């Protein structure tokens, strides 16, 4: 984990570029909001879908301007693929893949990828584990040799397991210093309960020390296989060269289980739940919201536009306008819709000085109430549509972004013509749709409200 030195570039005006970039990534990966814009969208498909010999799905987008190749994989081996009583096993397994294979030690893997100036990573997630590879074109075979090796032949050495568990536990401890993380964890727990999306640091820290090597090995064999994997490749390769390469390197990768363990329903919430967590800090970190929708919900696009107007649209959003621009009460205020395979969350996130916590919560509830009780203005909707469709080219302007969209297209079944369809989908949403979904999916009287703050100063009325 790296640390940004405070005297580097800083002091961004917005929620910061980085956060913005992160939001964008989140959108691409979680929400697949790959806006197709009015004029600038190319008519040609984004890429090609090819089923490989072993059943793995390849999405290929050739891009020959730079001699490099970007690979992004999604493997159905996230938290939802693991038994609910084993929190953390999915992420731990993912992080151990690069820590030693039948042919290479952890040190050899990092030396090889570092020597060619590339990057290789595997990490966990809610629905999917992700693997990433980036190499120069000339190092393509070294790259795939490494990627296939870590995915197909991990050995899960006990020493590496111990080391990684220690590291995760320490990292969890350190994250207690981050009030935003503390608030997010408490929010997640209240909203999702024992559902797989509700795994918190606390759950993981309690379980990992008990976890045995055999459980990891079993999870790996059950979930990692070509029939559970999607690979997107963007860069300086042709179909004729990449398909045989993949067939060769991923040959013999064993098929894995397709069915997921039964999921546990999130708890029903009947009235507002307020969680106050005391911490000796200067700002109240507020996380408020509730269960959201799944990516496949037909109302997804209307909800996304509704959220843009409410709090997702940066300086064009109502929450930002009111709480930051008019009142000067926060630097960062936004709402987000996380739509996954199963219903994710709707969440408003704000940091404000302890003393302003009540005012900010009241204002947020007011805005949620307003969008449920009156039609949005025609201009607001037109502006939201203009942004979402017009910014499409920016969402595909790097290899990594294209790879992210390709993966989303496959895992959410959006179709390779998604970029061409997108503007039409967005433009068909009406003010009445926004009103309807706001009423249906926003519940200001059934919210989880988490406030991490110096409670003495915050004097919460909630």
């Amino acid at each position, binding site marked *: 984990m790296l640390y940004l030195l405070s005297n580097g570039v800083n002091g961004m005006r917005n929620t910061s570029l980085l956060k913005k970039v992160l939001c964008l990534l989140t959108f691409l990966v979680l929400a697949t909001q790959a806006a197709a814009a009015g004029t600038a969208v190319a008519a040609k498909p984004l890429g090609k879908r090819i089923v490989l010999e072993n059943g793995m799905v390849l999405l290929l987008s050739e891009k020959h301007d730079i001699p490099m190749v970007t690979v992004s994989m999604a493997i159905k081996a996230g938290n939802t693929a693991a038994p609910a009583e084993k929190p953390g096993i999915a992420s731990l397994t993912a992080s151990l893949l690069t820590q030693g294979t039948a042919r290479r030690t952890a040190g050899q893997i990092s030396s090889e990828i570092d020597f060619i100036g590339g990057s290789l990573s595997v990490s966990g997630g809610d629905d999917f584990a992700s693997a990433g590879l980036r190499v120069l074109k000339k190092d393509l075979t070294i790259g795939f040799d490494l990627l296939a090796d870590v995915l197909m032949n991990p050995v899960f050495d006990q020493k590496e397991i111990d080391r990684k568990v220690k590291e995760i536990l320490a990292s969890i*401890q350190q994250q207690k210093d981050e009030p935003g993380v503390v608030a997010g964890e408490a929010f997640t727990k209240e909203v999702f309960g024992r559902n797989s999306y509700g795994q918190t640091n606390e759950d993981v820290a309690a379980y990992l020390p008990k976890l045995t090597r055999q459980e990891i090995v079993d999870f790996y064999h059950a979930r990692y296989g070509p029939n559970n994997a999607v690979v997107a490749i963007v860069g300086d390769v042709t179909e004729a060269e990449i398909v045989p390469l993949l067939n060769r390197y991923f040959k013999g990768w064993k098929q894995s289980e397709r069915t997921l363990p039964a999921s546990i329903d999130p708890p029903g919430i009947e009235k507002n739940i307020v969680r106050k967590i005391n911490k000796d800090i200067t700002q109240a970190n507020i996380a408020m919201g509730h269960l959201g929708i799944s990516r496949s919900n037909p109302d997804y696009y209307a909800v996304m536009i509704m959220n843009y107007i409410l709090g997702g649209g940066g300086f064009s959003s109502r929450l930002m306008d009111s709480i930051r621009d008019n009142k000067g009460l926060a630097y960062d205020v936004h709402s987000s819709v996380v739509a996954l395979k199963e219903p994710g969350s709707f969440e408003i996130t704000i940091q404000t000085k302890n003393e302003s916590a009540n005012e900010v919560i009241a204002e947020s509830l007011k805005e949620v109430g307003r969008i449920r009780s009156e039609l949005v203005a025609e201009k607001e909707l037109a502006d939201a549509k203009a942004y979402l469709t017009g910014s499409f080219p920016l969402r595909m302007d790097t290899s990594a972004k294209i790879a992210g969209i390709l993966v989303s297209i496959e895992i959410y079944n959006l179709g390779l013509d998604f970029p061409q369809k997108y503007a039409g989908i967005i433009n068909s949403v009406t003010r009445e749709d926004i009103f309807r979904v706001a009423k249906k999916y926003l519940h200001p009287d059934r919210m989880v409200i988490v406030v991490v703050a110096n409670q003495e100063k915050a004097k919460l009325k909630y």
Partner: protein
Amino acid sequence: MRIIKVVALISLLSVSIAAMSFAQDLKVTEKVLPNGLKVLLKEEHKAPVVTFQVWYKVGSRNEKLGRTGVSHVLEHMMFKGTKKYGPKQFSQTVQRNGGNDNAFTGRDYTAYFENFASDRIAISLDLESDRMQNLLLDPRDFQSERDVVKEERRMRTDDDPTSTMVEQMTAAAFIAHPYQWPVIGWMADLGSLTRDDLVEHYRRYYAPNNATIVVAGDFDTKTLLPQIEKYFGRIPRGPAVPAVGAVEPRQLGERRIVVKQQAELPAVFAGYHTPDIKHADSFALDVLQGILSSGKSSRLYKALVYEKQLALYAGGDYDNIANDPSLFYVYAGVMPGKTTDEVEQALYAEIEKLKTTPVADEELQKAKNQIESSFIMGQDSIFYQAMLLGQFETVANWKLLETYIDTVRAVTKEDVMRVATQYFTQDNRTVGILVPTKK
């Protein structure tokens, strides 16, 4: 989520040295307008997008104690309107056109940007030329935005124990140079800033002769350059910008600071005074940084995190894209059960090795390969390319980028050993320790 955020931060903003390398001919068109405005244009037609950036040569380096943070507050106010575009209209106009805009302030620069589909570039011309000269600086907006910046400071620094420690350590490392104070400013200074301070800062530094326009992406130079001349050429040249004369004297002995804060784990940072990008030693120090901290096979990660399991994270950061000499940081977060002292000594042990044993040929080559491939891969993003040009031009000269890789390639293991010996001395370092206090 948080971890992803930190990584995103580093990869985008800390402008990793490893990615700033070269190419013989960057195919940049350079033009200086009669009013002193420099224009750098880099056509790149691989995607139908364009980034438009304005870099002003002003940052916290141009501030005074008691008024720190003024550059950054002014940056916020640049979004608060002109006569032509009222409050809130800047970002909304950009977004309505499918664009993203933002700005950032550093020690040596304040930069503004819009990213658009390529057919929307005229909007940048209009908005940026307007706010270069016609900013309203409404008194009520100023009061409210100053509060926003205070919230920003609370979030970034005051409620983050490690950031607080690094801020204080940096303040101790410089006694005569403005790099001692944080870009965001001291909290009390933010409270006493006035609108007049901002007006003065704006008049003094926001002028074509103190700015660089960088555009990268899908445009036609022959069409765009006359448009830039039309929009910006009519803005009068401002008075000469006062030079910053401060020179940090040689450090005459180790300085140590301790920050006691409620925190879970201790952290150790050490900063060594080192030259900036304009100095020949900068290249060997870059390579050295790669050896110490680029990738999981790098020395600090391997020794402190992997083998000895003393640290949760460990690395080095050479802060050389600056107008004046700054620091080379080495740092580590302490694992539970380990002591700050053990970790500090382990950091120094790695530094000492560099002075006494030549790096292996393969290790040297690895560091160079990493720098070179990062440069090539960095070309994937037009935003990043423009950002490098803007940064280099602001603190030195963008043309340094064209020779960068060649100069890095020429670094020898003797160079690495020499710079390690010369700069990484006990007398030349400032050490910051975060000591957790728990209720």
